[in-house]
């Protein structure tokens, strides 16, 4: 790794100031599970590394019925999946967090880090999309809230501007009975990147669908949701849903999978996830 200066601010204000001052030369060190590998491979070569893990406000999980779930930027994935409130109120998120890499990595990798890294295959993203999470950002011009749907802007690109950081993610409360699932297809059942990821929630009658690893960003399948709206779920409709989802994404061939295979799996996982969220059994 190239040499750099290591800074450890203890406030958000100080962090913003450092980031504004050094611009491209500074990068945030959060969980480090993506960044340190990139630095080792000399893909990332920051001159200033800004460790945000000493900022107390960023390290909290809070839940209340009115505001929902708030997860701070430095909260590790294992903390989230082990949290009673998350297990009780957002089990889909527990599953999504647990599909990331290995237990050791999940002790360091963070939810916010996962979305800021903005890989199209980010495992937490499809679930956050269907939960309609909101991303809380602070920057030199003040605070703002961005719906997760607008947060990803391209392959490994997010909406953050110079000097801005994500302080937390808020997941709105869900009223009434609901169910959801995140299905991940990889080359192996564990410790692998997603070749296709599908998250579906069914809140009363509303179905929300999101896909990962099959477009430049994780993406909601609004057309497909519209197709299913108000209709009874049966096998022909599920098949149509799969076909429809395919038209909303643009899977590619890469080292992990061919485009053709991804296309098949998209259909299968959308079918299965919708069925599961509706309380059916994947046969």
């Amino acid at each position: 790794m190239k040499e750099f200066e290591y800074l450890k601010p203890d406030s958000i204000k100080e962090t913003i100031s450092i980031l504004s001052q050094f611009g491209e030369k500074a990068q945030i060190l959060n969980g480090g599970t993506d960044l340190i590998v990139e630095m080792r491979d000399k893909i990332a070569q920051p001159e200033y590394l800004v460790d945000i893990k000493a900022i107390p406000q960023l390290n909290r999980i809070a839940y209340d019925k009115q505001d929902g779930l708030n997860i701070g930027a430095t909260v590790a994935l294992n903390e989230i999946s082990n949290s009673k409130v998350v297990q009780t109120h957002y089990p889909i998120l527990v599953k999504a967090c647990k599909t990331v890499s290995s237990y050791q990595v999940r002790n360091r990798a963070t939810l916010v880090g996962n979305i800021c890294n903005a890989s199209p295959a980010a495992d937490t993203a499809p679930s956050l999309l269907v939960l309609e999470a909101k991303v809380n950002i602070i920057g030199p011009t003040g605070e703002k809230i961005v719906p997760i749907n607008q947060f990803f802007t391209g392959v490994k690109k997010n909406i953050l501007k110079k000097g801005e950081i994500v302080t937390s993610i808020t997941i709105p409360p869900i009223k009434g009975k609901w169910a959801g699932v995140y299905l991940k297809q990889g080359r192996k059942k564990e410790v692998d990147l997603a070749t296709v990821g599908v998250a579906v929630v069914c809140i009363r009658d509303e179905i929300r669908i999101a896909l990962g690893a099959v477009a430049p960003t994780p993406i909601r399948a609004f057309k497909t949701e519209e197709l299913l709206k108000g209709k009874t779920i049966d096998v022909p409709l599920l098949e149509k849903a799969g076909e429809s989802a395919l038209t909303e994404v643009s899977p590619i061939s890469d080292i992990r999978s061919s485009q053709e295979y991804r296309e098949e799996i998209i259909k299968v996982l959308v079918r299965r996830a919708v069925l599961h969220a509706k309380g059916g059994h994947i046969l």
Partner: protein
Amino acid sequence: MKHKIRFTINREVKEIEVEPNKTLLKMLREDLDLIGAKEGCGAGECGACTVLVNNKPVNSCLMLAVEVDGKEILTIEGLSDGTSLDPVQESFLKHNAIQCGYCTPGMVMSAKALLNRNPHPTEEDVKEALAGNLCRCTGYQRIVDAVLDAARKEGKK
């Protein structure tokens, strides 16, 4: 610019100066001569570098040494007290869960961390906890059996 860090390593307090671009793994191996943690991939994929930081298993190749300031580290060398082995270690020996031994330190630390947080794991729990520790020699079954057996024995106590 070197940073002064102070941490506990295997129950001993230590203060050293490190460059920020040194990983925890390199610091353990080069500065503290704790060579049990190994570099099998340098990218958080193989788990051979697993140590406990504040009782949590982490890939030490993905942490910077400066990040352990104020923390407690436990490595394989700190597991036995020099006269008797930890029950997890005893169980690995009993079940023949070791062949070349290279993945063993990381595997034992992951297992130890599991039993610390979940004294009664199922076989699934064990496999999930060890999913990030690669082994090429044993085929894993004996390792899983060793961990379950260690849990049973500790549970009886």
